[in-house]
């Protein structure tokens, strides 16, 4: 065979192998988790922090614009080498490839703590948005940490909990779990409640990490329980939703259509709203043993994010790329907004009420998507889109 023919054959072979590899990766998601949205105080006012993949950004609630860095010396905007105003963004590319899925915590006026997905706790100078110190962790972090009793309680992606002192960031106690912890721990009095992918709900003593009780819920527990009226409300992957006493006894349970991943919401009438991964939303009366008030299939695909309730509305974001406004009394669909290109809406929503520290004059519903061009979308309560934050 001549040399051109041989080259062509080699090229074909390489292309075939690459095609095989690429085809094999179809459907294989590149990301680890979905965006985390939280509030963080910066320069005396509350801002929105969004952590997703290789960036952590801080935004202005009024318009979704990245917050500008201000010099503490002269109050002027900080500028980069090209004289452009610098904005508050922490990039993984500038920090050894950090990946962010966890909300930052404010340690003091000039310091944020960020646990990344690369087994590091980053101490960030919030004035200049740069990492000041990096502390190695035992594992990756994929959920928001909890701050309570002078401790930062970090849930680990592959299993276990670590409590670190906010004074020196040294580990005070740790607790092992068989599988990962993918939900923010919950503080219930002097207990920390941990939801485990290993099917267990754990109650630990806040000060020492001592196990007080654990409860096998028959399926993975991936959401932060809701604490209301001295009861815990949580769903699991065995298609059930539970009401549990604070000493770890199941008081009642309700069967859902599919896995329950998101945290529930509760209104002032003690009706709890829970969504499942079949696209159903269920309204359950907590005063009568989780009796069903209504149950409706709202979305075409699953609902991962927990619903939110505000006034007479229930808000739901689905994997089908739509946000739904429901009447909380009967689950009737009031409004649905489709996000452009219908990216999956997996991250938890956040509702911001008007306040001086937020500098907004109407309530905002924040919805995150996994599409960089529409990473965070703000809606008014009436369903009007207020702003979009693209990355």
């Amino acid at each position: 065979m001549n040399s051109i023919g041989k080259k062509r054959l080699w090229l074909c072979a390489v292309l075939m192998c690459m095609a095989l590899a690429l085809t094999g990766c179809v459907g294989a998601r590149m990301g680890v988790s979905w965006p985390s949205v939280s509030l963080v105080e910066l320069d005396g006012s509350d801002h929105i922090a969004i952590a997703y993949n290789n960036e952590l950004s801080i935004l202005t609630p009024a318009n979704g614009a990245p917050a500008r860095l201000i010099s503490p010396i002269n109050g002027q905007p900080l500028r980069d080498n090209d004289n452009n105003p610098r904005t508050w963004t922490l990039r993984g590319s500038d920090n050894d490839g950090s990946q962010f899925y966890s909300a930052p915590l404010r340690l003091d006026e000039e310091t944020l703590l960020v646990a990344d997905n690369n087994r590091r706790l980053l101490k960030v100078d919030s004035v200049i948005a740069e990492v000041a110190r990096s502390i190695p962790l035992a594992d990756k972090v994929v959920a928001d940490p909890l701050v309570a009793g002078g401790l930062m309680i970090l849930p680990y992606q592959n299993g276990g909990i670590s409590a670190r002192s906010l004074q020196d960031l040294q580990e005070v106690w740790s607790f092992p779990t068989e599988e990962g912890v993918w939900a923010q721990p919950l503080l219930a009095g002097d207990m920390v409640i941990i939801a485990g992918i290993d099917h267990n709900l754990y109650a630990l003593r806040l000060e020492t990490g001592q196990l007080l009780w654990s409860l096998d819920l028959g399926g993975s527990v991936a959401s932060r329980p809701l604490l209301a009226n001295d009861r815990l409300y949580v769903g699991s992957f065995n298609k059930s939703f539970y009401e549990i006493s604070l000493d770890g006894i199941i008081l009642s349970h309700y069967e859902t259509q599919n896995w329950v991943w998101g945290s529930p919401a509760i209104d002032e009438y003690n009706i709890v709203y829970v969504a499942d991964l079949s696209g159903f939303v269920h309204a359950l009366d907590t005063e009568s043993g989780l009796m069903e008030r209504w149950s409706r299939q709202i979305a075409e695909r699953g609902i991962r994010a927990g619903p939110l309730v505000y006034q007479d509305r229930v808000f739901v974001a689905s994997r089908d790329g739509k946000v739904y406004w429901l009447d909380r009394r009967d689950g009737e669909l009031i409004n649905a907004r489709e996000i452009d290109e219908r990216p999956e809406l997996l991250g938890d929503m956040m509702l911001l009420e008007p306040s001086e520290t937020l500098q907004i004059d109407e309530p905002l519903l924040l919805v995150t998507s996994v599409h960089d061009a529409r990473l965070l979308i703000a809606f008014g309560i009436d369903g009007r889109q207020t702003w979009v934050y693209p990355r």
Partner: protein
Amino acid sequence: MWDLILNPFVTILAWLYALLNQDIVLAIVVLTVIIRFLTYPLLARQQESSRRMQQLQPQLKKLQEKYKGDKEKMSQAQMKLYRENKVNPAGGCFPMVIQFPILIGLYQAIFFALAATPFQLVDLSERLLIPGLDSLIPLQRMWSPVPQLLDFLPELDLTLAPTENPTYALALPLLVLVTTWAQQKLTMMTGGHASAKKEDDDEDESPSAGGQAAAMTKSMTTIMPIMFGFFSLSFSVGLSVYFVTSNLIGIVQYSPQGRRVLDKVFRSKKADEAPVVVELEDDAPVTKPRRKARKKKPRRK
């Protein structure tokens, strides 16, 4: 559409996991064996087609010599030759095309079932078709090859790459490389490309289609093991288990003994049929219809 293939695989894998004492490696091995066994008729057909094509090579070569410069006539003569011998030149591709999505589906089922991150696990919720399997989630991702020797051989995390596992996990990419090479080598020897080297050497300025295919197979024998060995370094250990199992089954399927047994199981007699000998004459390039064909014997002159 793709979910029609993928979701049953994920479900069966989870079901096997429950059936086999929650041993995910055993479940992967058993599912791979079942799938490779069920797709064997397709593989056999592909091999048979390749074999027949190979047998026609001398006559094709004669046609090329005879109709040098007249592509249209040569093409007609080739088609006639194929028709008379009931050979479809693309016939070997069809079974491969069918097998390919099945094998990719199996590969992906393992990927999804071993979900280790929220993103992967949220997908799994829509893939389990049998009620009751939800309580098995997450599938046990820690595995020890010899549970009695945990001190010497710590558990492997099947969702992590060999480089993130105990050192002995690095043997897996090596195993993938060796078994892929062995399978490719056997494919060349038994799958109709036994003459790859000869074809390669014989070929001149106008390489035949069969020669190109043979040369490509030969190239694949070198590239595929290296690439798959390399992939295994970064893919999860669970997928390496699949690669090794799949390759070992392939080795059995392509080996003469293995083929004999499998042909008996699937009652395939085609492999034993004698090829149809077609003589080319001056005015009729392909003359002998199949019913008049004789068993191939050395011709006396």
